[in-house]
């Protein structure tokens, strides 16, 4: 669960990270494939698909790490011809996914990613504490009838 304040704070951190690293897009994604927050521009890419694939890729890497006797690979880097992806593990079952191009390089992106990771972990910790004590979401209205069916 993210409140409006959590979302704003996380997006601000992501925007700062993009400014410093000159990366193109960055997002907070959970390991189940949900997109929590994002900043930057990916053109017309489907962000749900991007998040699902990133989470799947990281999960597969996590299994590789386990089989090598590592608890986790803390980062995963995919290098393309013009665009690259860096994924960094966060606490609370989350990932930082960053897409960057030729304007910057992996060293710079990774350096600032490590910094923003600390800040994001703190924000996630606060959000998690809030969620633990929040009242469950309950809504009025009959949204379980045929009129609300997916068609």
């Amino acid at each position, binding site marked *: *669960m*993210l*409140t*409006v304040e*959590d*979302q*704003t704070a996380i997006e601000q951190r992501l925007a700062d990270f993009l400014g410093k690293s000159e990366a193109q897009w960055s997002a907070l994604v*959970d*390991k*189940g*494939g*949900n*997109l*929590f927050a994002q900043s930057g521009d990916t053109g017309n890419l*489907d962000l*749900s*698909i991007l998040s*699902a*694939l990133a*989470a*799947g890729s990281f*999960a*597969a890497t996590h*299994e590789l790490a386990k089989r090598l006797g590592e608890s986790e690979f803390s980062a995963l880097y995919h290098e393309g011809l013009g665009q690259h992806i860096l994924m960094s593990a966060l606490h609370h*079952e989350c990932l930082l996914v960053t897409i960057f191009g030729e304007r910057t390089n992996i060293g710079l992106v990774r350096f600032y990613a490590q910094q923003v990771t600390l800040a994001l972990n703190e924000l996630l910790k606060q959000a998690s504490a809030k969620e633990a004590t929040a009242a*469950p*979401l*309950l*809504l*009025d*209205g*009959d*949204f*379980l009838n045929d009129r*609300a*069916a*997916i*068609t």
Partner: protein
Amino acid sequence: MAFINYSSREIQLKIVYYGAALCGKTTNLVTLHKQITHAQKGELVSLATDADRTLFFDFLSLNTKTLPGFTTRFQLYTVPGQAIYNTTRQLVLKGVDGVVFVVDSHWDKMADNVESFANLQENLIENHLSLVQIPYLLQYNKRDIPNAAPINYLEYTFNNRANRVLAFESVASTGSGVLETLNAAARLLLAKYSKTPNANVTGMAQPNLSVAVPPSTEGSQVQAGNAAA
């Protein structure tokens, strides 16, 4: 686990289609992608082998306005059915909110179906979950094949737990029963956000009568709990 974003007024829910190899999980998603015209849908992504067997997962995202004041994003996943991909199945179940268990109606596939259902329960435990916590329903697929097992047999085999769940007959390749299954799964998941959920939606309140239900027509809901009639 469901993710609620109060800033963008969005709820994200993950539904996993689970079942034995070649039971029709991917066909369900392919058919849904074709059938759904009103809800905002994403591209259907399949991580498959050259022989069109699911290697990692299939993925389809649907944005709906089913909840007042919120956009509901259903993320539909399939798992690879082949036995060797068990680790992958565990990974796909991470953060699951609901399961559609697809049963292949072919008599010869019963052992595979039973093994897959047991495997689902084991893999939920690996994710610190269980079928008691995770809403699920059954889809009896391939009802058009000549040697399909009778519905009462399938109900007795797969829907014989303490609380009986909703079950649907389908022919995923023609689209019969596919949208009905998805809508039932969606309602099942959304019921927890309703101030007035009812047993017909959750499908979980019917006691197990330990009697098989009579067969029903193709593409229709199998009426859980009506066996004593």
